[in-house]
């Protein structure tokens, strides 16, 4: 087992801050912690499934048409997950169902299919998917922490002292998302480059 495939997605190759894929949902859904975690779980789940399937069929796919094939695989998988969740776990579906259509615009999934799963074994691909999913969830949660606390005066829906009465609404709107995103990315690169300077 190659544990590096699992851990690299969390820091060294974090999908949001380093690879910079999936920025659309990262900005749209990072307005509260509950949403960030819900989106993270849903995306991780789909990522694991699509990485596994693509890794399994990688030998047979003609190189020229691999992208359309991946898209068919991912779209089929997302739709099946959506339907089965709605049918058998309606409560979970109600919580996460709203994120499913947003996964369609999540480039991390196609990105990992193309960059990793079509070159590696199924086991490594699953580890990669879990790591990338975790990295995505952590990145979303980090952004959401700042945006929810500063923009809503709450954390996980619980009012936070000091900011609760006078939140900065800008932070939950799109510009606030860009601010937090940019500052966090700068911090990440600063740390990765060796810290103090």
């Amino acid at each position: 087992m190659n544990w590096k495939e699992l851990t690299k997605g969390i820091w060294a190759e974090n999908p949001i801050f380093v690879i910079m894929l999936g920025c659309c949902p990262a900005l749209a859904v990072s307005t509260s912690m509950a949403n960030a975690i819900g989106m993270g779980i849903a995306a991780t789940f789909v990522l694991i499934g699509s990485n596994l399937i693509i890794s399994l069929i990688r030998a047979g796919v003609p190189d020229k048409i691999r992208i359309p094939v991946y898209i068919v695989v991912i779209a089929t998988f997302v739709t099946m997950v959506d339907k089965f969740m709605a049918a058998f776990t309606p409560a979970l579906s109600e919580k996460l169902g709203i994120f499913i259509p947003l996964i369609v615009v999540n480039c991390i999934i196609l990105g990992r299919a193309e960059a990793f799963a079509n070159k590696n074994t199924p086991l490594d691909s699953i580890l990669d998917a879990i790591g990338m999913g975790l990295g995505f969830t952590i990145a979303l949660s980090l952004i959401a922490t700042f945006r929810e606390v500063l923009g809503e005066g709450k954390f996980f829906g619980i009012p936070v002292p000091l900011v609760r009465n006078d939140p900065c609404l800008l932070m939950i709107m799109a510009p606030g998302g860009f601010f937090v995103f940019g500052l966090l990315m700068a911090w990440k690169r600063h740390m990765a480059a060796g810290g103090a300077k």
Partner: protein
Amino acid sequence: MNDMIQTGKYLFFISAVAGLLLAFTEMVTGPRIAENNRLVLEKARREVLPGAERFDSLEVAATDDAGQPATLSISLGFDPQGRFLGTVQTVSPKGYGGAIDMVLGLKADGAISGVKIQSMRETPGLGTKLNDPEGFLGRFLALVQGGKPARFHVKKDGGDVDAITAATISSRAFCKGIRDGMKRFQDNQAAIQARAQSGPAPTGAPGSPTTGTAPQPAPAPTPTPTPAPSPSPAPGPEPMPIPTPAPAPTPVPPAPDAVPVPLPAPAVPQGGTQ
């Protein structure tokens, strides 16, 4: 050329497998999803029209957004004694991310008794706050229960509803849904009254809508401000004449608060017809 046929074959094969899998998924989950949705709708109906136990659906003609004629269903809610409490209907205004399916309960006098969002595809964290019981939805219900006649437009459009910050489109759609539902109620007052007079229709009831009495003014004026000079009875304890399989009670309204007649209320599971 040969290469093209090869790749074409592969793509065809993958798509066929995907299509088969999706068809299978739909076959397995379709009925269950429909059943889940029905249960959720049933629950929502009871929530938005408190006290109602039995529902009776009324088909009315209407036009959809494209101006095409369509049939819409309004559910009439009755309490266990068969008194008409109000209507429940589904409205689907177009929001930022697609239709917002709302269940709207209106009391017999047309006032809002409750509203619930069934499904929406608004932006999570912004538009989805429509459903926040402590935020938008709570403020909306407080406004409705305040008793003052309110204009169901967002404040920016000259109404009384506080829009959600950064989600004005969703808030506007919500208000439009409320207005659509109220308008549909007013447009179909006569039909609703006729059906309400005839009471809930247990299977094989004598009081079918064809034999129902014509709409007539309620015996007492309604205590709440009605939006229109409607012949609607108050939502309170005015009993309606109830045709049931039991020996027909006299349609004379007894004193308020008195349960009209201890009817052997037919236990209709899940409230009437769908």
